[in-house]
């Protein structure tokens, strides 16, 4: 029986697994906490798989994601206090001078369910059908996938081909904003394009896994994908600044941003392209030393938003008399999307009288900025009998955003986060 069971997102592996008629259950609880009272998440998860018969295996996954805290709204810190309207349009919140504006109405619970069904077609080939559904109060994602894998060269080489399709619906609080239109004071008519919107995500991936020796295994994947539809973050805004003062354009004399009469605040809802083409190259190597195991991966990513990135990931499993220790290091570096901008300037980018914007796309979402992320982690695992294991891991994530040349005090703040996760696996 050689169904690939070692799968995240259906990674077909060529290696044999033992036949078990019981459920193999992995459970985990993850705590995720960001510095400066930003996002706090608690995430319980269960993953269970079992053989149905000699040729079929099913896997089920349930993850709950409870989030609270505050998230940057896209505007940057300023030398003056800034007032924003909540997404519902009913109330306001204020960021003090020098403070990064955070929307603290942020709270969400996400429930995600996934299922995979592996079927052996013959002695050397198999297919995995997958489905997934997730639900947040303002977001629903529905997807299906299929991965075909075939072994060659006495099962030392495995070729994979996978196709996935996802349909996502977003229904933001207050509706989807009209792009590059201003946020308005409570009481004024909101600039809204509609109640909800959607996007489709299609991904294709081919890969080869090769056994090099008794101790070494490598994998090489190439993936391309396309996203079509609504890709804005409906809660993110871009500041319009007065170039004379460097402050948000409220007191600039602009008739459009004369908030008392027009209601317009100097913050425009972001605008991203409706299509995104992505290319990914992925390499992984796993090597067994006398006792220890090293697991290394590298990913190159690029898309037609001009984001390119490099990701290096290294885990070293150090076997001890009782259990194992596993240090982890991850390094990620990305370049900014072509339409990422720190702000828009009144006069140059935005007409002071009409509010007309001379660019089609603009976003100040820090996730589209030039940035680096470094992660350091340590895991301790303790086998409890043959088929059960307890493990705990802690990780520190440090993300640095490089805004380029911006006025002092307006830099996007660094993000520091910690992860604490407890796992327990067993046969049921």
């Amino acid at each position: 029986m050689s169904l690939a069971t070692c799968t995240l997102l259906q990674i077909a592996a060529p290696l044999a697994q033992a036949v078990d008629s019981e459920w193999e259950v992995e459970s985990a609880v993850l705590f995720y906490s960001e510095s400066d009272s930003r996002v706090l998440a608690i995430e319980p998860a269960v993953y269970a798989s079992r053989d149905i018969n000699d040729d079929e295996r099913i896997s089920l996954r349930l993850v709950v994601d409870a989030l609270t805290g505050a998230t940057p709204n896209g505007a940057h810190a300023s030398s003056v206090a800034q007032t924003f309207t909540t997404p519902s349009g009913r109330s306001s919140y204020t960021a003090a001078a020098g403070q990064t504006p955070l929307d603290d109405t942020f709270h969400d619970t996400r429930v995600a369910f996934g299922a995979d069904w592996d079927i052996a077609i013959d002695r050397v080939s198999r297919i995995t059908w997958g489905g997934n559904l997730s639900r947040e109060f303002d977001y629903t994602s529905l997807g299906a996938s299929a991965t075909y894998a075939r072994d060659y060269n006495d099962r030392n080489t495995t070729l994979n081909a996978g196709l996935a399709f996802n349909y996502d619906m977003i229904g933001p609080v207050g509706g989807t904003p009209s792009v590059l239109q201003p946020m308005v004071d409570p009481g004024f008519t909101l600039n809204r394009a509609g109640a909800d919107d959607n996007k489709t995500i299609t991904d294709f991936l081919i890969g080869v896994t090769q056994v090099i020796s008794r101790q070494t295994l490598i994998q090489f994947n190439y993936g391309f994908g396309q996203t079509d539809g609504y890709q804005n973050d409906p809660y993110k805004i871009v500041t319009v600044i007065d170039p004379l003062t460097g402050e948000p354009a409220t007191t600039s004399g602009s008739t459009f941003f004369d908030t008392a009469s027009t209601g317009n605040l100097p913050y425009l809802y972001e605008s991203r392209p409706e299509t995104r083409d992505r290319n990914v190259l992925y390499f992984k190597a796993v090597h067994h030393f006398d006792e220890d195991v090293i697991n290394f991966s590298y990913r190159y990513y690029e898309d037609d938003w001009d984001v390119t990135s490099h990701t290096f990931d290294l885990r070293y499993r150090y076997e001890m008399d009782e259990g194992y220790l596993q240090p982890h290091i991850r390094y990620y570096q990305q370049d900014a999307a072509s339409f990422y901008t720190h702000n828009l300037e009144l006069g140059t980018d935005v007409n002071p009288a009409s509010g007309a914007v001379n660019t089609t796309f603009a976003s100040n979402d820090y996730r589209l900025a030039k940035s680096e992320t470094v992660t350091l982690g340590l895991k301790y695992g303790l086998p409890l009998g043959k088929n059960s294991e307890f493990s705990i891991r802690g990780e520190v994530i440090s993300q640095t955003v490089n805004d380029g040349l911006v006025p002092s005090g307006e830099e996007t703040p660094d993000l520091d986060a910690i992860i604490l996760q407890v796992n327990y696996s067993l046969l049921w």
Partner: protein
Amino acid sequence: MFRACLYSTKNKSVRVMAIMFMLISIPACSSMGIQPWERDLLAKDSMQLVPDYLDNFMDEHIYFSKEASSGGQGVGGGGCGCN
């Protein structure tokens, strides 16, 4: 959609290189590998490509919500608002 994706000029060199690599892998790899009775180490949980399913799943989710890149390991899995 795939037609547009396959025939767009941007990123073509990356795509061609990747597909070429896949195609030459099968004969090139035929001299590598091991016999069935030598698979003792490869069968261990720690030698799987993804040894810790939930760790990997959680990490993918976190970095998807904090960075502009995603994918590479496989297809499927689902999306999120991740604001």
